[in-house]
């Protein structure tokens, strides 16, 4: 049973929004459904500056607060630790949106249900190449893989760069950041 996770290296993120556009194309999402949101931090004083763009998306937490509060069981931790939202059960009460400290869940205006990053990189159903955020990123800032496999690219990268979740131990996040 794998334990999928992602590494995002903000030192390589130039804020070009390709990942969110590719995610919308890959998963056929509404224009208003953006599974990735961005925070931008400007530090330093003119003219020595640094601008950091931080992509944020579902962290697929192992102790997912969204799954804990979801009354209908729509938000649940599925196979391989991927937090999923069963669109057939979701009533759109938005409790999970409140409970998620990363604020990365969005309402599908058409169906009234809530959805979020589905780690679609793992489930290329038609067995072909993916245009998910990981493959689409032009600077290769994202790595996806099995955290339980020590030889996987992501495990090695996390060890090498000492990547940390964005908000420390706020939740057992499975997305690690190099900043």
């Amino acid at each position, binding site marked *: 049973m794998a334990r999928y996770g992602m590494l995002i290296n903000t030192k390589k993120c130039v804020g070009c929004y390709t990942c969110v556009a590719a995610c919308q194309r890959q998963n056929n999402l509404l224009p208003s459904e953006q599974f990735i949101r961005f*925070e931008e*931090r400007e530090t330093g004083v003119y003219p020595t500056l640094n601008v950091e763009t931080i992509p944020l998306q579902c962290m697929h937490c192992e102790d997912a*607060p969204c799954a804990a509060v979801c*009354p209908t069981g729509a938000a649940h931790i599925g196979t391989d630790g991927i937090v999923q939202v069963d669109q057939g059960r979701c*009533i759109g009460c*938005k*409790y999970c949106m409140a409970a*998620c400290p990363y604020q990365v869940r969005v309402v599908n205006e058409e169906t*009234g249900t809530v959805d979020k990053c589905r780690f679609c990189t793992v489930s290329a159903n038609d067995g072909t190449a993916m245009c998910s955020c990981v493959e689409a990123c032009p600077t290769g800032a994202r790595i996806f893989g099995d955290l339980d496999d020590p030889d996987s690219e992501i495990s090695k990268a996390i060890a090498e760069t000492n990547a940390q979740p964005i908000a420390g131990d706020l939740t057992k996040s499975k997305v690690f950041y190099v900043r």
Partner: protein
Amino acid sequence: MQFEPIWGVPIALYLFLAGLGGGAFIASAFVHWKNPDAEVTRKAGHFIAPVVVAVGLVLLMLDAQGGFHNPLRFALLLHNLGSVMTWGVIFLAAFEVIALIAAILEIVKRAVPLWLEAAGSIFGVCVGAYTGCLLGVVKTFPLWNNAILPVLFLVSAISTGIAAVILASLIAAPKEAEELDELKGFHYWMPVVELVLVVAMLFIVNSAGDAAHASVASLLSGAWAPAFWLGFIVIGLVGPTLVETYLQRAKGANERALGIGSEAGVLIGGYLLRMMIVMAALPITLTVAWL
């Protein structure tokens, strides 16, 4: 980053009405016990409780778009016993059933058995407190995530419930209203307790990180300051307390009008409290402060 509140007026109204329903039932049970002859007041309480809770539930369903499109899914609400909302649904269902039975009994002029009044009151407390817990368990919003909120919401629930009942009796049966001294006695202290709770809560929350501080600031000095100071504090708490103190000494001529005014104030304050807590809360800052 601009933050759009997740829940809006419908949910704030739902939390307010659920609490008020619970409080109204408790008030009418109390009246039943302490002032058996205040028929109209008791009936009012027993009618208000189920109606306002029903209205609240409808608002909840309207806001939950997914469920609204396919209503069968609401049955799934009982799936996750770990979720406060599931418990809320259970309490609300139980309370609504009891309140309806009580209301029907009133209509057919049969006495509402005391055990039913007691059960209804217990569930009334649960409903009042659950609304606070619903928000309280959410770590994302420091303004919610503290132990005082459920107590504050419960006190406000009972206070607004009593206010509604007294308001009804002032309007429908002014003579009965004069006899409700014990009820008014309790009711007199509630806004004071609420004020203490709010001050304590905001004081503690204010120190819990910059999202917390920003939320409190937006209440005290930011966009919500008018609603907070004028609406909640003055009209909702201080105003009614002053009026009640005045009424206790001088049974003035326009005692009824002042009473109605103060009870209405409590109701307005109760709603504003829910609206502000729901909509002024700002989420934990990951890297950039939410404006």
